[in-house]
């Protein structure tokens, strides 16, 4: 079924979508791939180390914080990220350079599995949507369920077409990473398919089973 949604993507939004839905998204995407994710996670780890260092007489290996401290830590971690993470949509993508007068070059999804190591941390901090292509690990799926998040696929190898849905692009940080810098995009009716919904249904598995004549 075709659906239209806008960012921010809330738990309310993901509740209304199921694996297999064809969705057009309008709003803001933050763009990050492997190298950017590595830096985001390093920033979080640094913040976390400093937070624990400031705590009085605490067993540093014991992560069981009391509720107010836990919330204080989360707040600090969110502030350490270069974009507002709560209810955000992150697009796994590294564009080709824009020609003059255009916001961006070719801009299709990259393989999401390379972000599997990093994604649960960001989902736990409030990121709601991931847009990429390809399989995800069990850890990511569990994190999707836990956080009422969602994994969308965009069509891989349709970067010229998808670029037409991107209205503007602006650098957020890590310019030195070139094609891997973090960007903020404004998108309009960007077409995606729900692959893993907030209940953990996985279209990659169910659809293949539906069409397989041999295994």
């Amino acid at each position, binding site marked *: 079924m075709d659906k239209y949604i806008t960012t921010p993507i809330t738990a309310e939004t993901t509740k209304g979508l199921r694996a*297999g839905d064809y969705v057009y998204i309008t709003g803001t995407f933050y763009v990050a791939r492997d190298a950017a994710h590595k830096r985001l996670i390093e920033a979080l780890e640094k913040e976390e180390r400093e937070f624990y260092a400031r705590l009085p007489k605490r067993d540093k290996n014991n992560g069981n914080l009391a509720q107010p401290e836990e919330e204080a830590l989360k707040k600090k971690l969110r502030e350490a990220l270069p974009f507002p993470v709560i209810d955000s949509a992150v697009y796994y993508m590294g564009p*080709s*350079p*824009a020609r003059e007068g255009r916001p961006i070059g070719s801009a299709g999804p990259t*393989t999401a599995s390379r972000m599997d190591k990093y994604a649960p941390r960001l989902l736990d901090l409030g990121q709601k949507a991931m847009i990429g*292509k390809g399989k995800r690990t069990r850890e990511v799926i569990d994190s999707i369920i836990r956080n009422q998040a969602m994994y969308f696929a965009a069509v891989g*190898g349709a970067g010229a*077409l998808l670029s037409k849905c991107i209205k503007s692009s602006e650098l957020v940080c890590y310019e030195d990473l070139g094609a891997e810098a973090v960007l903020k995009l404004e998108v309009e009716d960007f077409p995606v398919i729900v692959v893993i919904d907030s209940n953990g249904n996985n279209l990659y598995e169910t659809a293949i089973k539906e069409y*397989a004549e041999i*295994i």
Partner: protein
Amino acid sequence: MIRTISVEEITNNIKEMCIEANHYLSKDMEESLKKAAGQETSALGRKILNQLQENLQTAGEEMIPICQDTGMAVVFVEIGQEVHVEGGLLEDAIHEGVRLGYSEGFLRKSVVRDPLIRENTKDNTPAVIHYEIAAGDKVKLTLAPKGFGSENMSCVFMLKPSDGIEGVKHAILTAVKDAGPNACPPMVVGVGIGGTFEKCALLAKKALTRPVNESSPIPYVKEMEEELLEKINMLGIGPGGLGGRVTALAVNINTYPTHIAGLPVAVNICCHVNRHAAREL
């Protein structure tokens, strides 16, 4: 008679080929994708295949690369032994062509100087170059930008001779199944059988440059290509890996003599953006 070719001519051609390959698919690939839309049984699959058609059109008309991963440039050079290259090194001329093509063509720079230190070279060099010395006085250049979504799903199997043809088919099907949605299906499957560890990988890579509507000249290999294509298209992976019939557009197999003790098989997976440009100078 020795024929002279200047390095400028090589550089210019490589540059143009980088831009051409990243904006237009070859006729055979284009037709095969068109045909696929008619064969797809899943409605979502058809929708995706139609988007891919539209994507190709937009790419060509507006000069936006077909895919943002404009690849690492793989160059096959067949150089006639009566050719003399003038004005510098052939190797440098090729890298320079790639550098110019990727900068002037607004293509993405996706190459890092060291596999572990990972600093981007910012001009997509170096290319990966394979040379062959041929008879005659011509230079044949084939440039294939290779995206890594599908490259990462490729593999080499060192099978035993007793695994036989069934073992080979099983290995190929396993590689395709594992690749699934990650390789941006519908894919083109390049296979190398025989040779040594590195030779079979090269055979597989080269198989991807063969037109998808051309079969192996060896009858039993042609049969195997057809059978495997049919089997792959029964796996259910479909366009985008979201279910359907069209999982692969072609299986191209190249073979080579091998050792009495071995049966190497390489499977080089390519996505539907199976890019290559070829020129003879």
